[in-house]
């Protein structure tokens, strides 16, 4: 009987009990005030902390102005003045300003990630300066070719200035290695858009040199790249730089571009070996061309292969999504927790300890993990399609032969560094 009487009372008091519980819990959560604030009698005045601010935001826009000015000067030096010397000095300036003074942040290469993070995540607002750093060099590439690489990018500048003894790599190796930046770009966008990591910034090889401070492994990586760069010029630009992929694509449609010769090309072939980046496309006239039915067949075959490669790229990356999602810290944490439950061995990871302290439930965590993996599946499909498509187009472009009557820089590959100027015997005096 008593029991029965008790129950309704319990029910009536439930809100009160819950409220008390909440208050108690609140005091536990918020209540590190174990010791009350003393009431001083000696007239003690609370000290204040110095909270220094970042350098003023206006300086970021000063950087943007410097970027635009540097791009204009580089364009003028490469396209009009045609001065390799001037471009070298421009590189020195950019290395000193964007590299050593601004310590490499923010750079256009990394801004790709800010843009993709902002495009696909609602929680992130992109700083206007980052957006400008992303767009302005691309606009210049669309108008004048890769002038950004020539003398503005600090990463390019440090390599340009240390490339003393250019050697050429065998064509096959060159072609294989130039496909790496595409993969790097696709992964960087994938990881940034899923709010997982900024891999371009994390594995930036030269930022440690700019800051004179970096993890040991990155210093070694940067030093090795610079050393190999003495012989294989600009290794980062050619075989890694993800922003270079975008510049490459944009530059192909450039309205104006650096030319090897100031006037008419006489096909003297003196510049043939001038470019360390294999970016000079030789003249190819009808006389040299042998009558070959094969390329045409190959062309059709490769052209028909494009959709196939694209779709298979999409499928492969879609299935790789769970593996790729391992770069996300939440997914890694969820896996660790699951492993811990499976094996019964307590994890020693700090993330796991912090998770247990945070009071978040495992179901919440696993739900979050599932959401992230779904995001990865959605995004990696497109990354695969991009990779497949670029591989397909790349294969087709290998068999296309253009009719050309002069030696020209390859608009996509040319860094507008101006090394070829001095090889051209034609001089224009004005």
């Amino acid at each position, binding site marked *: 009987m008593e029991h029965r009487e008790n129950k309704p009372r319990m029910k009536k008091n439930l809100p009160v009990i819950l409220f008390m519980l909440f208050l108690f819990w609140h005091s536990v959560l918020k209540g*590190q*005030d*174990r*010791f*009350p*604030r*003393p009431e*001083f009698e*000696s007239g*003690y005045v*609370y*000290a*204040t*902390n*110095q*909270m*220094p*601010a*970042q350098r003023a*935001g206006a300086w*970021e826009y000063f950087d943007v102005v410097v970027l635009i000015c540097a791009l204009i000067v580089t364009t003028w030096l490469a396209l009009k003045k045609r001065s390799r010397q001037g471009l070298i000095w421009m590189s020195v300036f950019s290395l000193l300003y964007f590299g050593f003074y601004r*310590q490499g*942040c*923010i*750079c256009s290469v*990394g*801004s790709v*990630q*800010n*843009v993709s993070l*902002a*495009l696909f995540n609602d929680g*992130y*607002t*992109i*700083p*206007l*300066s*980052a*957006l400008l750093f992303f*767009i302005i060099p691309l606009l210049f590439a*669309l108008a004048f070719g890769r002038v950004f690489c020539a003398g503005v990018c600090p990463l390019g500048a440090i390599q340009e200035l240390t490339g003393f003894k250019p050697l050429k790599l065998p064509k096959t190796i060159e072609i294989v290695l130039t496909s790496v930046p595409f993969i790097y770009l696709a992964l960087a966008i994938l990881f940034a858009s899923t709010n997982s*990591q900024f891999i371009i*910034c*994390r594995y930036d090889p030269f*930022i440690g040199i700019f800051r004179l*401070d*970096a993890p040991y492994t990155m210093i070694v990586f940067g030093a090795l790249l610079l050393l190999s760069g003495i012989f294989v010029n600009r290794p980062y630009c050619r075989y890694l730089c993800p922003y270079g992929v975008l510049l490459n*694509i*944009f530059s*192909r*449609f450039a*309205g104006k571009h650096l030319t090897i010769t100031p006037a008419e090309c006489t096909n003297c072939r003196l510049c043939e070996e001038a470019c360390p980046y294999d970016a000079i496309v030789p003249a190819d006239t009808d006389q040299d061309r042998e009558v070959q039915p094969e390329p045409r067949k190959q062309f059709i075959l490769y052209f028909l292969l494009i959709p196939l490669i694209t779709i298979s790229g999409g499928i492969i990356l879609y299935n790789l999504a769970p593996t790729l999602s391992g770069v996300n*810290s939440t997914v890694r944490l969820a896996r660790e927790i699951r492993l811990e439950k499976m094996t019964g061995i307590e994890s020693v990871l*700090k993330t*796991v*300890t*912090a998770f247990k*302290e*945070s009071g978040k439930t495992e179901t919440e965590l696993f739900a979050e993990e599932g959401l992230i993996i779904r995001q990865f599946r959605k995004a990696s499909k497109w990354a695969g399609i991009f990779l497949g498509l670029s591989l397909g187009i790349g294969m087709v472009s290998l068999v296309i032969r253009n009719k050309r009557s002069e030696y020209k820089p390859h608009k996509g590959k040319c860094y507008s560094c101006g090394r070829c100027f001095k090889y051209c015997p034609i001089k224009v005096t004005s």
Partner: protein
Amino acid sequence: MTEGKNKYQTRRDFVKKTGNIIVAAPLLLIPVALAKKMSVSGYVWQIDPFKCTQCGQCKTNCVLTPSASKCVHAFRMCGYCDLCGGYLRQGVKTISTAAENQLCPTGAITRKFVEEPYFEYTINENLCDGCAKCVKGCADFGNGSLYMQIRHDRCVNCNDCSIARSCPSDAIVRVAASSPYIQKDKGKNNE
């Protein structure tokens, strides 16, 4: 249309022009798409002291040595205790300023007598290396008035904060550059 009839109307030229437009269009669309998600003043990184678990990762994982994250004291939260969990090592025999009693490995905390029985603890930012030992001590045994903050006179504001990546409790967040600190005693400023 036969090829080569007009210099500017070849097939190749047409492809180039179309490509130009196709490539330029998304570039101009990006700012439009991001118009609502843009901040003019930008952001900086900061440690949310309410999420921080005092693991000390931010000492070792910052790109700078010593780290840009340092300990800050919220005076208005402090209990001004004699037996301070942030100043003294656990299990000390005497409560004194002797070096062997201090928890801080660099001796960055100075202890000053205010009035009976209260002591004031001040962090010397120049000595602090951001190991968070005192922060942990204060959170475990005290009021939690010592807390970690990224000092913006040192922080280089990396695009990808390397201590944010390694923080086990996701305590490092982007905050507006106009209010770069998350101060623990903000609501307690008035007497």
